[in-house]
């Protein structure tokens, strides 16, 4: 078959698919997901005992999607991006947590936050400079970095502003805590590369700098750099997406997202932190007495029920599985408890294996909904024994001036008609 013929077939297949998708939209329902496709199927006479139309003609040929995209019926599963951001070059987009299963966030849906736009970097021209209090200042190409012994590990990254302390808190799980995602990361332990340069006595911090227009800098304690920090070039098996720092980023498992510097180009070993703009005026927490906490790196234990959750609707009484995600920057999740009665009593949820350190952990609890209004919520307990607090407990200690590190329990209210809404809103 000539190349020309292949192209033509691909084009025709794409056109057919486009027309089908167009018909679905013209059908009137802009809603993605199960409800929309069921309605279409009924109109299309594709239900038993009839044979569906997609069995009566060949499907799309190989090559119509050389990379691959989700089903046209999953168009609604996209990043949750506010339409009213003051500026899109310093902004965030959230993972649609309530649409996802398992613990791995697909790369296209991984939350993003950047401060000077997403740079387009030629990996052949990217360099990592390692200097400061080292015996041998070094310069690495991406080819160099990939020659080091590699490892792959599954960890979450979470923005420390996930969510804010004040209303409005948002309608969906994504609105609330969509600034967390989890992936399998591949790269080289930072310790391996630091050993290559040789740390000098008195080296206490490393200042990491990104190659973005913000030249973002954060200071990292040397202990973390020598523990589980990684220089990462791949995410879920493929090279990093540009939004996640292509071609190289820093991964600091359990530390606030901003410190996991993307488009990493420089590591400077120093005796004291940089006190950069990000770690003085931004990622610090004002307390009620006027002081502010600095260097609050760890993301403490947290959980959220993703199904049923805000914006969803229970269509029938009877069996429903409650499921959600739990995580802790301090290690593994030990247990997750779920309350079905506004926090009066709690029962143990089942944790899905694998339960990994500093990774999202999926929990499940079987539930029979009797049709009465209910308030459901989850709380995580990590391996240090720390128990996720209520919002009231958190605010009693920190007040409402803080912007970061809100890890409060989040209740969902289920109405008699099955509609699920934010229990704090």
């Amino acid at each position, binding site marked *: 078959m000539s190349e020309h013929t292949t192209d033509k077939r691909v084009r025709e297949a794409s056109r057919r698919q486009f027309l089908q998708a167009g018909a679905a939209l013209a059908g009137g329902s802009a809603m993605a997901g199960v409800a929309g496709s069921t309605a279409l199927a009924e109109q299309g006479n594709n239900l038993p005992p009839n044979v569906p139309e997609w069995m009566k003609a060949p499907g799309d040929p190989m090559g119509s999607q050389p990379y691959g995209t989700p089903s046209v019926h999953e168009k609604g599963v996209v990043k949750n991006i506010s339409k009213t951001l003051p*500026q899109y*070059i*310093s902004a965030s987009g959230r993972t649609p947590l309530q649409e996802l299963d398992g613990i791995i966030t697909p790369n296209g849906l991984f939350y993003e936050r950047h*401060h*000077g736009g997403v740079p387009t970097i030629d990996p052949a021209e990217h360099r990592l*400079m*390692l*200097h400061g209090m080292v015996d041998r*200042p*070094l*310069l*690495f190409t991406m080819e160099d970095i990939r*020659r*080091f012994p590699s490892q792959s590990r599954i960890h979450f990254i979470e923005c420390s502003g996930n969510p804010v302390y004040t209303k409005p808190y948002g309608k969906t799980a994504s609105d609330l805590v969509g600034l967390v995602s989890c992936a399998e990361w591949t790269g080289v332990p930072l310790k*391996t590369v630091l*050993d*290559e340069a040789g740390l000098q006595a008195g080296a206490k911090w490393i*200042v990491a*700098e990104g190659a973005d*227009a*913000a*030249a973002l800098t954060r200071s990292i304690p040397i202990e973390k750099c020598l523990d589980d920090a990684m220089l990462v070039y791949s995410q879920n098996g493929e090279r990093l997406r540009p939004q996640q720092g292509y071609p190289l980023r820093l991964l600091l498992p359990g530390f606030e997202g901003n410190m996991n510097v993307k488009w990493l*180009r*420089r590591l*400077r070993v*120093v005796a*004291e932190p*940089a*006190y*950069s*703009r990000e770690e*003085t*005026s931004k990622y*610090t927490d*004002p*307390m*009620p*007495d*006027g*002081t*502010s*906490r*600095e*260097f*609050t*790196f*760890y993301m*403490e234990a947290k959980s959220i029920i993703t199904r049923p959750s805000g914006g969803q609707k229970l269509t029938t009484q009877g069996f429903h599985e409650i499921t959600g995600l739990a995580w802790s920057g301090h290690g593994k999740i030990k247990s997750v408890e779920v309350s079905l009665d506004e926090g009066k009593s709690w029962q143990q949820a089942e944790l899905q294996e694998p339960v990994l350190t500093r990774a999202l952990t999926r929990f499940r609890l079987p539930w029979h909904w009797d049709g009465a209004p209910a308030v459901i919520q989850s709380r995580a307990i990590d391996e240090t*024994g*720390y*128990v996720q*607090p*209520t919002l009231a*407990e*958190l605010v009693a*200690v*920190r007040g*409402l*001036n803080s912007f970061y*590190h809100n890890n409060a329990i989040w209740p969902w209210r289920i109405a008699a008609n099955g509609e699920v809404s934010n229990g704090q809103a």
Partner: protein
Amino acid sequence: MLGVAVHAEERYGIGRAATPAEIAGWNIDIGRDGAALPPGSGSVERGRTVFSEQCAACHGDSGQGGVGDRLVGGQGTLPSPKPIRTVGSYWPYASTLFDYVRRAMPQNAPQSLSNEDVYAVSAYILSLNGIVPTNAVLDAKSLAAVKMPNRDGFVSDPRPDVHNR
């Protein structure tokens, strides 16, 4: 080469030496003590012009904020229910202002200002906050000597701070 071979067992020999010139080109970090501030100086007066040309569109004509952060005012509001965090009320070190403006501002053309203009615009923002006089001229020494109002306002992280079990 011999030295590398001797240490081959403990190192991978990956990467090459970064030269002093290469490091100098990329290392623009200014720490809180201001020790690495570059030569040059800038006046509040010059800073007013630079600010109106490069900064006001996002930060407002007098630093009151817009699509960009508010830069001025808010001193004394931190213990209140509505803290206003600005360069004047919140930032602990003036040298951080120089570092950030030089590396990241203006947002549409970062690293485009001369060191003199970065000194000048830093001086202007500090003068709008009443931290330096309106006739000030800042250089490495005088900028490093500025004591910001909230310098002693930061405490270390005491978490875990909620003890509920």
